[in-house]
């Protein structure tokens, strides 16, 4: 289980780097929007759509609003990949 979360984190990290066009990004489960300059409400939408595309899943409107940290994002993805 722990390994899987790390794997998800790595994949999400790659998406963040691509979408936000910043190779320096290194996410942890505690990272939130305040930690990354390019991560704002607008790019958040783009991140959501790219993550949906990558994992072939859809998030609900409520889920998109609810995430405060990358860890919560991973909870949501993990729940859908079971």
């Amino acid at each position, binding site marked *: 289980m722990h390994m899987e979360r790390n794997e998800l984190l790595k994949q999400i990290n790659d998406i963040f780097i691509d979408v936000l066009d910043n190779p320096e990004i290194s996410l942890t489960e505690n990272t939130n929007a305040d930690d990354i300059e390019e991560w704002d409400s607008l790019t958040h939408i783009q991140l959501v759509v790219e993550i949906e595309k990558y994992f072939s899943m859809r998030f609900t409107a409520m889920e998109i*609003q609810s995430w405060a940290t990358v860890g919560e994002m991973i909870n949501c993805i993990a729940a859908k990949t079971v």
Partner: protein
Amino acid sequence: MKTFNELRKNLKKDYSGLKSLRVAVLGDTSTQFLVQALRGAGFDHMLDLKIWEADFDQIENQVYDPSSDLYNYNPEVIIIFHSTHKLLGRFNKLSSQDYKLFAQTQLAAVSAMHEQLTSTLSAKIIYYNYNEINDAVFGSYSAKTESSFIFQLRKLNYELMLFSLNTPNFYLCDLSTIQNQSGKADFFQPSIYINSEMALSLAVLPQVANRTLDIIDALNGKSKKCLILDLDNTVWGGIIGDDGIENIQIGYLGIGKAFTELQQWVKKLKNRGIIICVCSKNTESIAKEPFLNHPDMVLKLEDISVFVANWDNKVDNISGMQSVLNIGFDSMVFLDDNPFERNMVRENIPGITVPELPEDPAEYLDYLYSLNLFETISFSKEDEERTKSYQVEAERNLLKKSFDKEEGFLESLEMVSLVEAFNKFNTPRVVQLSQRSNQFNLRTIRYTEPDIEQIINSTDHTSFTFTLEDKFGSNGLIAVVILKAEDEGILFIDSWFMSCRVLKRTMEKFILNVITAAAKEKGFKFLKGEYMPTAKNAIVKDHYSILGFRKDKEFWYLNIDEFQMQETFIKVKEGSSYL
């Protein structure tokens, strides 16, 4: 097509050197991503769109306040995006007796907005029409129910077309078709709409941006004029040289249907003025046989302006066509089922469009529809007659070969030109020629119908249009000159553009004789000309020098009193009126 993410990466590229254009974007939903997509797609269209974006849902406030940022920005193009979601929201608030009037009320609002905008701005307006939402209140019966939302929405889209038909400088971008092609699920993402007020999904944004850019390109005089077709497995199934005329696949059975439908599409393009050419690796007589003798061929030889079938490479053949047709490679589209030929042409002919046709011919047509290759902003009678005029040009070229000297040939053509000022009959063609002439165009000013009306009503301006007719037929209206009076007896050549079809016919000299005579009659002492270089008009770099103008700083001058009539083989046609 690039994804939104890829378009967004364009934003960091170097836009210097690209043509810049001031664009205003106004929407009643969140438009930030649309703006990014437009600017990003602009880069691929070689445009540096300087976009001013109205704040969220401020369309009416901006339009009806004459001191608003919109008017201060003075945009050249205004994009207005009223979303269907907000439209539905307005409909939902009506009391039921007003449902039936909804489309008319909305159209009146668009019309009033247009009037307000054009009273002070000369910008072109691009209005997004409405993608369909059926609120399922009546089911399919909504089509029989005038008070249903979908009935009113479709009526509004239809009324917008009628409005646009009669309103110059108002263009519709067909969002409804984009949704039909991409599907509602790709067009609109409810979770994103709830979170960000965006009515367009990220997946569809590149489509919307590119369709908008297609209109902007056409407004800038960039459009496709010519379609070049391979034959075997492109226009018919099978290989004519191997299979023979009885065995090629075409008609209404099996895969033949796909080729027949493609041909029907090509025929419609021909009817709307696209030049159709054939470029095939074949023996000419064999390649022509189906056109002459196959009962199911939709395309006939008379639909084809230039027919090239030989065993030379296609790059050389297409270059040859380009010199006959005198149009830019960037206005040509080449269709070929063979990836090798496509790559060869794409890599060696800069600017030509080579669609990556699907492997299955059944999919050719829908794929080609999705590319929207033939955007335009005008359609006139000349368009319908274009194929004939290029065929006549080929006949002229044959006659030319029988004369040793150019003069003898020109004299034998018995050329006449009808010279007239602008009027309401020739205005559409003048506008079109101004949009399309890229090479023989001294200052490359593009005119719209309202611009031409202004010139007709101006006392400072004198306008000339020229046709060219010869014993083979008429080329139609092929040249335009606009003169503007300046101080001290100087008449400035504000515009001079001409179709390249009539190069080397002494038309330039004829035009100079006419305008100099008119200038003299009006008491002017000097003609003043200017050459404004673009990427495409090098052909007229020495135009004024050849005609005997003298250069002073950046302008060229011709002393009217010292002017000697130039030798030309063109006579003024009876019925001309220009003095």
